[in-house]
């Protein structure tokens, strides 16, 4: 699937013209003409002493995070005389369809930012290089990152991505609405009993507390989280068979869909309607991405809070994805460029605190535990989710299969089929797609 976390940004982007690409070239200062070409293959990103290299970096940060990213790159260019990184930004949706063509025609970037669930696809298709040596030389290991995020960069036991951040689903609550219904706005519900009790109180006050969106953003992601909370998984361990029609999955789906029947959510919630209703005080709770923090901060009339997802099922779990750095394979390999790219990736990973201000949880442990990060109250509130985040599995070509999963939920949430029926049908189709992928990628 073309992962697009920034649903609101996607709206804006579409409105402002599809495919408009913002290009910003941050040329570093000239000079740095050291002609030392020894160690051209690089030393895994510790430093780079070769001749000056120009690196192209592609990302999909079209929102406020894009500016923060560019500022970081500017700082990097200032500190490194012989590496000049230029940033090119596309909409995520265009990004993943543009990248393969650009790379095969030799016009691709040197460094590409990618979502974790895309890594396997692009690794299997030979677009990106292995980065095991970067991890080794920089002595990066699981301990420096959250294990879930770190493992997500692997495909076939080889590392293809260095994680920059993670962005989970969070639990947003509207304090004003809670107060109106006689709930303590400083004590958002944290488990199933508290959650249903709060919804009951809200219903008494005439509020449909938690709108269940049938769309991937963000109802589908809510179901994804609940399915894991009930102890289910989307696929088996080898990602050979879909398992999202297991009993726990059906139970999780039923719990969610029943909220509509019980009157805690209207039927036929439209795309983004759950979030818009939250902002205008028509509902009290919404499960939405961490990226909405920055949007809510811009809305001073909304009194809101954010907390980790309540534990509705038997364990904690939350949908999450992660941005990773990758190095793109070139038609004609340039060892100097690769070495420079590795230096950049390491540097930015260490400076990811500033990135956290863009509304993402840094992947690097040292940054996450710094006092500066703790000062970012809202983003920090979701950091605990890192321990139990349910990241998408690493399998090439999973995008279309995920779409099948979200469509199955869509049918259940819109009452077109019973949860069991919708998920059974979805699994039948997903298994065919997985088999197709195995043939294609020869796994």
């Amino acid at each position: 699937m073309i992962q697009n976390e920034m649903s609101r940004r996607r709206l804006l982007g579409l409105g402002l013209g599809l495919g408009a690409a913002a290009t910003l070239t941050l040329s570093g200062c000239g000079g740095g003409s050291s002609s030392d070409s020894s160690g051209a293959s690089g030393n895994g990103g510790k430093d780079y002493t070769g001749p000056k290299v120009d690196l192209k970096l592609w990302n999909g940060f079209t929102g406020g995070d894009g500016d923060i990213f560019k500022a970081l790159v500017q700082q990097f260019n200032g500190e490194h005389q012989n590496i000049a990184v230029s940033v090119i930004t596309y909409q995520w949706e265009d990004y993943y369809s543009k990248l393969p063509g650009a790379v095969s025609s030799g016009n691709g970037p040197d460094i590409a930012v990618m979502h974790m669930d895309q890594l396997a696809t692009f690794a299997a298709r030979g677009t990106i290089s292995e980065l095991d040596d970067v991890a080794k030389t920089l002595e990066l290991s699981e301990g420096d990152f959250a294990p879930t995020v770190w493992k997500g960069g692997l495909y076939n036991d080889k590392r293809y991505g260095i994680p920059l951040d993670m962005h989970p689903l969070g639990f947003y609550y509207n304090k004003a609405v809670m107060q109106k219904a006689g709930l303590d706005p400083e004590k958002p519900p944290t488990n199933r009993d508290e959650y249903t009790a709060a919804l009951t109180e809200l219903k008494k006050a005439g509020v449909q507390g938690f709108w269940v969106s049938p769309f991937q953003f963000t109802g589908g992601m809510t179901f994804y989280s609940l399915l894991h909370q009930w102890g289910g998984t989307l696929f088996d361990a080898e990602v050979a068979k879909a398992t999202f029609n297991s009993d726990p999955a059906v139970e999780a789906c039923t719990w969610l869909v029943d909220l509509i029947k019980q009157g805690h959510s209207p039927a036929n919630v439209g795309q983004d309607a759950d979030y818009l209703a939250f902002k205008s005080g028509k509902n009290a709770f919404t499960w939405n991405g961490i990226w909405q923090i920055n949007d809510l901060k811009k809305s001073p009339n909304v009194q809101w809070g954010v907390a980790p997802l309540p534990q509705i099922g038997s364990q904690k779990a939350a949908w999450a994805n992660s941005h990773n750095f990758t190095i793109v394979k070139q038609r004609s390999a340039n060892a100097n460029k690769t070495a420079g790219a590795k230096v950049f990736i390491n540097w930015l990973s260490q400076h990811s605190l500033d990135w956290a201000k863009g509304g993402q949880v840094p992947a690097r442990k040292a940054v996450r535990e710094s006092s500066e990060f703790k000062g970012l109250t809202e983003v920090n509130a979701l950091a605990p989710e890192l321990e139990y985040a349910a990241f998408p599995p690493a399998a090439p070509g999973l995008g279309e299969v995920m779409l099948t999963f979200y469509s199955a939920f869509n049918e259940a949430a819109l009452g077109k089929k019973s949860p069991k029926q919708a998920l059974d049908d979805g699994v039948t189709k997903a298994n065919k797609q997985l088999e197709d992928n195995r043939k294609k990628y020869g796994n």
Partner: protein
Amino acid sequence: MADVIEAGAARDGAPPTVAPTRRRGATERGNRTTPYLFLAPYLILFGVFGLAPILFGVWISLHQWDLQLPNRPFVGIGNYRDLFSSDSAIYGDWWSSVRATGIFTLFSVPLLVVIPLGLALLLNRSFPGRTFFRAAFFAPYVLGVAVIGLLWRFLLDANLGLVNRLLGVVGLPSDTPWVTDVPWAWVSLVGVTVWWTCGFNAVIYLAGLQDIPAELYEAAKVDGAGAWDRFRHVTIPGLRPVMLFVFTTTILASANVFGQAFLITQGAPGEQTRTVVWRIVDEGLRDYDAGRAAAMSVFFALMLAVVSVVNFRLFRYRED
């Protein structure tokens, strides 16, 4: 092209009454390549950007083709067979998208042929503010699909949208799921498309109406024809070539529907409103399976070609 030359040659044998004919004959005798030279500027563009990609597309459709995977095995008609064999992974999606596009085309084309005709007839009369209304009906067409898509998605939202609120005010049901359930989603998609594009067809009709000589109407009136007779026996025959054009282009445009469904219903419920073009884009650019996407495109183009041929036959038959 050979036809043209033969026609010229044949005419050459006829009594040389008209000067241009003689000139054409002379040119033909002088230089056989001349017509091709005149055609060249377009022919080259068409060849490079039209014909070559089509042939390449057919070639791709016979392979399992991924832009980046090094091996692109030849699979013969395998991609086409997948479209028709019920145990392939794409069979269900493909035919559900054909169904979606079919439903949309079936309902939008008649409306987009008839409503603009009515509009054009009204706008062809002279009344104060005529220019304003002509502009007003054409205005939505100027907007991009992204603009109208987002606009209507929010207007039609079942719980927050203005449409349902207004319906509630006048005492009608205010919980219609305009964008998340069928058949309402089709009503929305067709309705929005008619609102969006009917101005364009109306302008074409208007031009056609102004080409019908006023004397014909006068003559009909003198012969005692009423308004309906004048419409049936003067306006409709006069508009026939224009109608053929409108009919054909509207069918093609409706069959290519993508943006409206992508933005307004997002395929919901389930994947029932995901259209053919959307399916092809997903197959080719999201799942990187250019072979299957090409097979779908070729098959879809053939279906549209058949429809267009039938369409032309139908209108020609009437003319005879």
